[in-house]
């Protein structure tokens, strides 16, 4: 059966060049880069090379890159590490209602431990208001944590404005850029970021590796204490193969960001137009323009998301949904809730996230398969009948 993967925001295949980069480090060059002998020397260069590749993509210096095991670790490290290190300066964090759980759950944990957190609301496009951010800052504010691009809707936050506000009030700025990396240009200097988190498996790299940009001079308590790796910022034997893979993935992302993502944007737009033309009562979730080029989130009214996904899946199409049934919790997507999306439409929300391997053919296949599925499920829905 044809398989069309449109869930790149969930994870991506490892690019062939990336896998090739990784393979020597499993058996031939398996050393621990902290070792002084040949087995260590063979690999320490690879780690430093990858550090440069990551640094180049986001415009920082290699010494400001700390390798981690994933985006979630990076977010936890940034938030908890800041709160612990800046305890004497304050205890207030400003974030948004639509952050990834790696930030939101961490904030909730920190609230239980004496932090105060302001969750900025978003409008119907999932966008924040910078003026509200500015107003939220108090004497005790130590951290602004606002993501670069939202994983569910693709909405892009005004990071440069946020960075300017952070600078004005001398507050540290952390941004979860897991979804932005590789899809749009990311420059930590322009956005005046202090801490930026990325994850390998969202950008054609392997799972189980990530990085945090830590601006030089940023005081932060480690999340993982232990050995002297990563200049005492993150203990644990280096995951050499994955780090080398992340480096290569960042290099490729840098080279291809323009070409790839113009193509991906065109495909996404074709999909969006096609759906809107062919299917009535579809609502776009997310910002119409300020949006990741690969992301399309729509609610097909009257249909619950998981049943839609299962039907897609029977046709080989992989997408994802904000319905409670796919989130692992009982609530539908907190992002839809924050945007004021009506609850039934929140359960209906469906995310198509495209990537460099998608083709026009893929899009056309989805556009062909989708309408009868939606039709059939609407016929089955008590909500549809009522309104018809």
């Amino acid at each position, binding site marked *: 059966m044809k398989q069309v993967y449109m869930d790149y925001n969930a994870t991506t295949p490892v690019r062939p060049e990336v896998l090739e980069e990784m393979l020597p480090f499993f058996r031939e060059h398996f050393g621990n880069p902290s070792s002084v002998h040949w087995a260590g020397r063979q690999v320490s260069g690879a780690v430093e090379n990858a550090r440069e590749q990551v640094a180049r993509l986001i415009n920082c210096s290699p010494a400001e890159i700390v390798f981690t095991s994933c985006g979630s670790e990076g977010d936890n490290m940034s938030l908890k590490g800041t709160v612990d290190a800046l305890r004497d300066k304050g205890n207030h964090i400003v974030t948004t209602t639509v952050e990834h759980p790696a930030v939101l759950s961490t904030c909730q944990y920190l609230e239980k431990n004496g932090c105060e957190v302001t969750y900025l609301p978003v409008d119907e496009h999932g966008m924040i208001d910078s003026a509200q951010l500015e107003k939220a800052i108090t004497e005790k504010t130590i951290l602004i944590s606002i993501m670069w691009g939202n994983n569910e809707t693709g909405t892009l936050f005004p990071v440069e404005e946020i960075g300017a506000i952070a600078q004005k009030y001398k507050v540290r700025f952390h941004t979860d850029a897991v979804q932005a990396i590789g899809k749009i240009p990311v420059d930590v200097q322009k956005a005046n970021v202090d801490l930026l988190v990325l994850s390998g498996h969202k950008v054609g790299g392997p799972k189980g590796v990530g990085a945090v940009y830590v601006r030089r001079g940023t005081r932060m308590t480690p999340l993982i204490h232990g050995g002297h790796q990563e200049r005492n910022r993150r203990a644990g034997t280096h995951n050499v193969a994955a780090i080398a893979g992340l480096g290569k993935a960042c290099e490729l992302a840098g080279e291809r960001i323009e070409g790839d993502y113009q193509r991906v944007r065109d495909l996404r737009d074709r999909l969006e137009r096609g759906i809107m033309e062919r299917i009535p009562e579809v609502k776009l979730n997310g910002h119409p323009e300020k949006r990741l080029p690969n992301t399309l989130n729509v609610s097909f009214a009257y249909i619950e998301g998981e049943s839609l996904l299962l039907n897609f899946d029977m046709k080989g199409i992989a997408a994802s949904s904000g319905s409670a*049934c796919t989130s692992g919790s009982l609530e539908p997507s907190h992002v839809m809730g924050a945007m004021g999306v009506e609850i*039934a439409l929140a359960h209906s929300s469906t995310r198509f996230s495209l990537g460099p391997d998608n083709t026009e053919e893929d899009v056309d296949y989805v556009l062909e398969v989708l309408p009868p599925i939606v039709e059939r499920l609407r016929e089955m829905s*008590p909500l549809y009948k009522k309104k018809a």
Partner: protein
Amino acid sequence: MYSEKVMDHFSNPRNVGEIENADGVGEVGNASCGDIMKISLKIEGDVIKDIKFKTFGCGAAIATSSMVTEMAMDKTLDEALQLTNAAVADALDGLPGNKMHCSNLAADALHEAIKNYREKQG
């Protein structure tokens, strides 16, 4: 994640629709938990002669709805009232743990429909 039986009932649901001039109608669930099930009945004497469902919900919700209509068809009302959500889940070879809570309401909808019929009967 789902058993074969669930996937069968989900992809080929039995008795979808709404009976016109139904003798009893039951609706349970609400949009906030993500599941709404509506069951309509045609009753002759004491027996369910026809039963249809409409469901807004996940795979488990649709499959349990379909299964409960098969199980209730041609049963007497008292027999139908014995059907439990657990029995429906069992008949589907079980549901994933995290689906037992919200989506497993089909028997409740059936019971509501029977109650509605009996109330109309007075």
